[in-house]
């Protein structure tokens, strides 16, 4: 009987414990939320990253035009510029008026000397498909990049105007104005004066996804709900910042593949 009482006592304690535990067993933790970061990483992937890629394709193609008659030199340039060290059949990729760069996309030479750039990476999941960039150049390494919604398309819409300068080591977005709109929302990302966005060039560092300096000012709106949000996205080496006035969040670097939706804040100030 004594043993039985003891077992029942343990049983009662276990039952009480299980009851109490069930009350909050699923509680999760508090995270600092910054929707601006999530908006920014999507806009960066779909638009900003592609502007950089278009600039680099144009930069390569401009240099290529100067030596396109010399096939050995042309192939060497392509391999060095894009750091492609595997055997590619360049004869089927490098033409006088067109080039296809593995991992990037196509660049075409127009009769007026401008380029058209069509990238592989245009995000189909975003809905902003079918984009083609028109690139004109007023000096070596300096490009004006634009892309507009095709006339036969009503939604989603986009408008991209950017000026990019490709130096020896970096691509600099001297100014950029990106806007996109669907029926539910619109987002714009505009250069911040005095803080041009810049990224390491492919020939220097290989493919680098995130810019390492500069800022973009974002405006997000949902017209139906009269909702509006504004913030600045700052780029740095190894992280980004999301600023709202004096409040600055230091966040994880942007990722080419995976959106971070939680635990992305490294440090919060103010």
């Amino acid at each position: 009987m004594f043993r039985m009482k003891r077992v029942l006592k343990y049983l009662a304690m276990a039952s009480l414990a299980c009851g109490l535990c069930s009350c909050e067993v699923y509680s999760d933790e508090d995270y600092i939320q910054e929707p601006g970061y999530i908006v920014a990483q999507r806009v960066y992937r779909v638009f900003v990253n592609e502007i950089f890629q278009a600039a680099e394709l144009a930069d390569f193609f401009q240099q290529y035009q100067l030596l396109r008659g010399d096939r050995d030199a042309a192939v060497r340039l392509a391999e060095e510029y894009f750091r492609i060290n595997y055997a590619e059949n360049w004869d089927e990729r490098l033409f006088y008026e067109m080039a296809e760069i593995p991992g990037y996309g196509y660049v075409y030479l127009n009769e007026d000397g401008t380029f058209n750039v069509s990238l592989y990476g245009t995000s189909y999941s975003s809905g902003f498909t079918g984009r083609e960039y028109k690139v004109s150049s007023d000096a070596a390494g300096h490009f004006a990049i634009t892309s507009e919604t095709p006339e036969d398309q009503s939604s989603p819409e986009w408008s991209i105007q950017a000026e990019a300068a490709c130096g020896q080591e970096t691509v600099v977005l001297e100014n950029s104005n990106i806007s996109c709109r669907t029926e539910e929302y619109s987002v714009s990302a505009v250069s911040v004066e005095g803080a041009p966005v810049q990224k390491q060039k492919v020939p220097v560092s290989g493919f680098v996804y995130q810019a390492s300096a500069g800022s973009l000012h974002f405006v997000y709106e949902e017209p139906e709900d009269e909702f509006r949000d504004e913030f600045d996205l700052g780029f740095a080496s190894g992280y980004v910042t999301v600023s709202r006035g004096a409040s600055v969040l230091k966040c994880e670097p942007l990722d080419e593949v995976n959106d971070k939706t939680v635990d992305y804040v490294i440090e919060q100030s103010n």
Partner: protein
Amino acid sequence: MLSSRAIRKIFSAKLVWAMLALLPGWMSWSMLAGEPGKARDMREPAEFDYEVRLGWAGIPLMDAVMFYDGYSPFAVYDVSWYQPTSMESIYRGYRGPGYMTGIISAEVDFNFKRWFALTLGLGFNGMYQDVYDTMTGRKAGCNRGVSVSVLPEARFNWLNRGMVRMYSSVGLGIVLGVQRNVDYGNSNFVLYPAVQFTPAGISVGRRVYGFAECGVGTQFTGGMAGVGVRF
């Protein structure tokens, strides 16, 4: 996928471990403590024809899974899983801690033999979870859910000695529920099978008794305890 973090969290509640740790000792005690000479034949008719039991169970596992993600039975509630599917969903509220009442059950037992009973159980579980505005951090609403389970079970008394019964049971039923998500502005109706297995349970008392059991299944996982009346 059930994240390792969620699994850790569930098991860190200690109730599963506590029940599992108790089980071997409990079963061996029950086998050895009896007095065979006084035991009545298990094939005899049951002393009482009916029982009514009220109980409270620990973790309604499937409710937890379905409440916190809304649609996938294999995803978990945890915000680390949460992936805004569209741009505008980014600005929807974020979810705070979620709470549940646990399974509150009522059942009627039909005792056919001293070793066998059929039971019909009705379980209730309530859930709620505050939702916060992503921009201000202030409370913006509350997700709520309720589920009702109907669970017929077969119960096997493998020890039935006067004051003490020990048993195992297995049941198959359904769970119906509705969950209202203010952050998505929708309501989900849920329907899933209630598959429940009780490896070991004990009841102590004659006409009025208390019981405790450990169970594994979609209705609840962990312990259940309560009181009952035989008549």
